[in-house]
């Protein structure tokens, strides 16, 4: 399969022109797309796994933190209560019989105790009581507890909030987890610990982490510890989330590849088109060359035979001359286009040219030829147009090409050509109007492309190499101007050459290259 692929690719490279093979162009891109897609998928799966691991760890850590903290608070509460009862018993042993003052001291030592009562075993009616309920009251919640001494029972009421505040240090200490930053995932390992009243035990999934509640042991079982662990890895919002980001990057690569494929395909298509146009040119040119050549040969052979009347001989000579002129015109065109396309060193020689005079002399030169084709030329020249810095030969050639086109693509009905010279504030405009067959809208955009010829039913009989308008456009644009075309099928076309107006006072533009004498 791989061999097949390589041979196909080799073919695609070797082929060069010709119709682009859809598969051979897109195959490499399809392979890249597939690889990128696989990469994206892989990274996505990997990141999902990592995220899953992160959440699992966060969940476990939340549970662990809550549990540890709860046990720690339990131990601290137990220790606090044991300490209180031990203190009382020690005091009782030292004092002999408990007194109200002793009880008061004891209550004052532990600020979480709200009220206390001592009930001696021997006399139920002689109890001691000390309490400052409203002074220390914090919440409505009160809990009772009692312990036994050798002489009686001590019962006390305490405020659990105050008791928890007394053992607050135990809750404040962070649970023992080292923050290992070796892992690629970052979990906020510091749990947010808080106390909750009437806890519902269990783990709860938050948007960005986990919360775990673990209730305290008796006597504070109505309280619980809530540990919230946030997972930063999961929490990244939008495209900042690493796993989404890898997806975005892959997608971007995919899009770029797609654009590349499109561009490559288009380039290939364009090249193939140019190639086919070049092929058409060769056909055109050979046809163009063969016809006048055969005419010339025929004429020359007839002359060589002699025995001709004076008039016939003259006709043949005229014909040979005309065909030679046509041939040289064609060859000039081809050469000029080739030269200008290859950015040849032959630059245009800008000299002051009178546009009116240029048009008149051109028409005068070619009048007989035009009339021989049965056309009439009408001139409409603005007398106010001043001298312009033009390349005389080039502009003449452009104009001639337009007139040639007008003649070539005119029907039999109205054989008239109008040449207009006028000016606006910015441009000097040369117009050539015909009443010929016109150009379709889809062709207008392409008629200036080299080798392109609009398709008519009789294209082949209208002689031409498809280079005339290309040359016209190149000449005009090298003068800094532009071309415009208006055309309606069946009514005729107007070609308009807009040259930027050079003011009378302006110095002639310095020629970048000296004109060659050889031309």
């Amino acid at each position, binding site marked *: 399969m791989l061999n097949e692929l390589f041979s196909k690719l080799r073919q695609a490279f070797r082929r060069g022109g010709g119709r682009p093979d859809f598969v051979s162009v897109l195959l490499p891109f399809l392979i890249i797309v597939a690889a990128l897609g696989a990469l994206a998928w892989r990274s996505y799966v990997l990141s999902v796994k990592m995220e899953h691991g992160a959440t699992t760890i966060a969940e476990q850590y939340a549970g662990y933190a809550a549990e540890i903290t709860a046990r720690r608070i339990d131990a601290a509460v137990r220790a606090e209560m044991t300490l209180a009862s031990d203190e009382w018993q020690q005091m009782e042993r030292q004092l002999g019989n408990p007194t109200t003052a002793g009880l008061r001291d004891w209550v004052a030592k532990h600020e979480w105790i709200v009220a206390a*009562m001592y009930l001696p075993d021997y006399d*139920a009616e002689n109890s001691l*009581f000390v309490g400052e309920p409203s002074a220390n009251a914090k919440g409505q919640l009160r809990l009772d507890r009692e312990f036994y001494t050798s002489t009686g029972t001590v019962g006390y009421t305490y405020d659990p909030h105050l008791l928890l505040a007394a053992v607050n240090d135990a809750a404040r200490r962070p649970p023992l987890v080292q923050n290992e930053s070796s892992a690629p995932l970052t979990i906020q390992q510091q749990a947010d610990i808080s106390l909750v009243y009437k806890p519902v035990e269990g783990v709860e999934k938050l948007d960005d982490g986990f919360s775990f509640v673990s209730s305290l042991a008796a006597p504070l079982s109505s309280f619980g510890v809530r540990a919230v662990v946030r997972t930063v890895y999961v929490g990244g919002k939008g495209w900042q989330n690493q796993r989404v980001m890898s997806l975005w990057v892959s997608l971007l690569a995919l899009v770029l590849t797609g654009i590349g494929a499109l561009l490559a395909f288009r380039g290939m298509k364009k090249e193939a088109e140019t190639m086919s146009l070049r092929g058409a040119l060769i056909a055109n040119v050979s046809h163009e060359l063969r016809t006048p050549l055969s005419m010339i040969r025929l004429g020359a052979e007839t002359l060589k035979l002699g025995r001709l009347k004076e008039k016939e001989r003259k006709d043949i000579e005229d014909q040979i001359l005309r065909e030679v002129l046509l041939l040289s015109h064609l060859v000039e065109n081809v050469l000029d286009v080739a030269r200008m396309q290859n950015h040849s060193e032959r630059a245009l020689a800008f000299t002051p040219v009178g546009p009116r005079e240029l048009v008149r002399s051109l028409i005068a030169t070619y009048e007989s030829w035009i009339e021989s084709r049965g056309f009439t030329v009408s001139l409409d020249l603005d007398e106010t147009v001043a001298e312009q810095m033009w390349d005389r030969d080039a502009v003449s050639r452009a104009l001639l090409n337009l007139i040639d086109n007008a003649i070539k693509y005119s029907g039999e009905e109205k054989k008239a050509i109008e040449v207009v010279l006028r000016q606006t504030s910015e441009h000097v405009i040369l117009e050539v109007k015909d009443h010929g067959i016109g150009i379709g809208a889809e062709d207008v955009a392409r008629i200036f492309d080299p080798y392109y010829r609009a398709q008519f039913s009789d294209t082949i009989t209208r002689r031409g190499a498809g280079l005339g308008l290309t040359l016209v456009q190149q000449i005009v644009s090298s003068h800094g101007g532009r071309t415009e075309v208006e055309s309606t099928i069946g009514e005729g076309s107007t070609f308009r050459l807009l040259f930027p107006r050079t003011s009378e006072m302006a110095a002639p533009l310095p020629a970048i290259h000296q004109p060659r004498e050889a031309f």
Partner: protein
Amino acid sequence: MTHRISRIFIVAVIAAATLSAEEPKCSAAARECDHQIRQMLRGRRFLGVTVEERAPGLMIKAVVANSPAERAGLRAGDRLIAINGKSLTQASTRDFKQTVAEARDTGRLWMIISRGGVYAKVETRLEPYTKEQIARIVAAHLLESHTAKAGVQ
């Protein structure tokens, strides 16, 4: 009896009201204290014996007059062998009290005692403090802590 206690109580309250301006020991209002004491004593049941540790074992040191223990026939000098099925021969005072406290829900107690070498089974019930007893405790507190000088009656 009731008449006497309520008189003491009224006197105490009047004394507290008149003398509370002069540095009472308990900073809370008398009514708060009253409420608190009653709450702590409500439903509290007692047996009415004082126990002494005699290594090993426990011995009844004294019996409170007019208590459930006295009515059940317990006397000072009785050795405690078992209570509610638990042996007390190695127990401390604390264990005994713990067991009594655990029995408060039902109030039932049955003990095996040894008096002069003779074992006897004693059944009794824990009894809540009487209203008179509670009133006496409240009054004692009010007298002591809510008056400037103790013993002003």
